């Protein structure tokens, strides 16, 4: 039998994994909801942020500065990609734009990965060096608690931004009615740039959170993308709240299955969930 304290510890770990999944899901959902571009390069952003931060810390830079620098790098990268590649994608419309978005971001993912393997081929981590936290009789890793807290704060800030500020409201207007937004003087293209950069940073944060708990390498980029896809499918690709809930639930389920059944089955459960949702609720992906 598994003791209650072990179960609690696994739950916290599951939620910590869920936190990074939720961030990835939000990253993909933001961009798809606004511009119908399914960003298959999102995992590369996560990996780039994590590796940049990790290299900086091992070079002696304090962790918070290194983390911010990592996020800054993917933010700038996101801006460059938006102004170049995505500008070309946004020239087309409807289904054609979605397909073009899938292919160009897929190409981008392959390209970024192909470039990175030449420079950063080992595995990297971002140790926080935190002591385990005692909650009653349960001992959980400090890193997991921090991961959950950071993700929660960032998501709260993001939601406040979207709900409370003018820019955020403008963004949500475009989610719902692009023509209407244009009529009241909102430039959708500028908002899309802002949101793409935002999504790159959120994905970068997901990478940092994962790197705090385990080693990651360039090869993980595509895996992160698939996680992001699964979360957005299960949560509904246009719903930010859905992405957060789906991320937390899938992280929990995956970690529990990992502990009780095995890692192979746990991964299959993740993909299986996505397939079941696609088959029974295909409207989540339709435009």
């Amino acid at each position: 039998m598994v003791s209650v304290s072990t179960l609690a510890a696994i739950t916290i770990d599951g939620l910590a994994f869920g936190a990074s999944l939720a961030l990835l899901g939000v990253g993909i959902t933001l961009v798809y909801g606004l511009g119908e571009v399914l960003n298959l390069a999102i995992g590369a952003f996560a990996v780039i942020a994590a590796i940049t931060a990790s290299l900086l810390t091992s070079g002696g830079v304090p962790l918070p500065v290194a983390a911010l620098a990592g996020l800054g790098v993917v933010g700038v990268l996101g801006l460059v990609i938006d102004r170049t590649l995505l500008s070309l994608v946004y020239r087309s419309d409807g289904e054609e734009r979605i397909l073009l978005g899938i292919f160009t971001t897929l190409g981008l993912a392959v390209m970024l990965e192909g470039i990175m393997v030449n420079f950063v081929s080992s595995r990297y981590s971002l140790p926080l060096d935190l002591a385990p936290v005692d909650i009653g009789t349960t001992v959980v890793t400090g890193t997991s608690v921090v991961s959950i807290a950071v993700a929660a704060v960032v998501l709260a800030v993001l939601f406040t931004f979207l709900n409370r500020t003018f820019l955020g409201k403008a963004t949500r207007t475009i989610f719902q009615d692009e023509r209407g937004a244009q009529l009241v003087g909102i430039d959708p293209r500028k908002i899309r740039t802002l949101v793409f950069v935002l999504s790159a940073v959120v994905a970068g944060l997901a990478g940092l959170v994962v790197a705090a708990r385990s080693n990651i390498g360039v090869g993980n980029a595509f895996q992160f993308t698939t996680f992001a896809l699964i979360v957005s499918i299960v949560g509904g690709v246009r719903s930010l709240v859905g992405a957060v809930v789906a991320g937390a639930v899938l992280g929990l389920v995956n970690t529990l299955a990992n502990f009780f059944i095995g890692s192979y089955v746990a991964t299959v459960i993740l993909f299986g969930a996505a397939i079941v949702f696609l088959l029974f609720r295909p409207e989540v992906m339709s435009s």
Partner: protein
Amino acid sequence: MNTDTLPGTRKLALVAAVFVLAPIPIAGSGYGVGVLTRVLLFALFALALNIVFGHNDQLFLFMGGLGGIGAYTTALVADTVGVTAWLALPVAALVCGIIGLSVSWISARRRFTVILISILTLNLQLVFAEAFIGARDLTGGSTGFPYELFSISGIAGAVGIPTKVVLYYVILAFLMAAMVLYIWLINSKYGMAFEAIREDEAAAESIGIDVVRYKTIAGFVAGVIIGIAGTLLAREATYITPSIFTFLAVDVIALVVLIVGGIRRTYGPIVGAVVVEAIEAFLSNYAADWRAAIFGALLIVLFLYFRSGVIVTIRDLLEAYDLVSSGGSGGGGTPAETEAE
């Protein structure tokens, strides 16, 4: 099937002849024959994608996974039943055909868009990839097992030519059979129905075309071809591991091949495979480390600027400047010969 009634029989025979002769100048080079064999294999994958995606708007992004199912099934059937792989291959092809059929049937019944199908099949690809690694008892996990089925080395020994060359001709026979099937299919009532459905699904349905049925047939045919191609891909590698059948190793390459050659063009898959494998061979010789980066960039540029096919775009340009006379669709002859050097 009476091939005399097939349009363009002479052209296909010419292409076949070029490929039959291609290994002769380089028969001594195992590497050269390997490159030529990959041309055939990826032409086969791209041909399947041309049917199901090009003509039916069903973007199958699980060609690697499905090919893997074909390869593992062939080996397992041959091993457990104790028959020759030649008998196991049709079983495996049928299994893959049924998987393709099921995906197409469900997608068509539920009116999935091309995007939804691509995401569904991408997820299936990832499940298959996990299964190949996880089902260690059947697949040998990530270390795999030797794959030297079809007693090709026996034939090679008897005839006195290298095993790789014999395998090349076996795969060529499959590719040519698939080409005949493709040309017949597209010029039959199926091709007409595919075209009508692609132009306007609702209109096609209103004149009595059974959309679900035709899409399902396309899924089945593509599944069978992909299953066979996957088996032959493992045979070419002589060792089967899950890494042969990843999304990046099969689907991405097949997509690039199809787009380079030109979607919905009869010889598109062959022309595309020649060009792509020539680039790949060049890169692995001169810039092996940058192969993935360059292929990624290629994918972006192709989809942004050359969606109707590189060959088509180049010929349009040449025609615009009166450099060539118009007419005649892209052949596989000349690029194949440069490739053979």
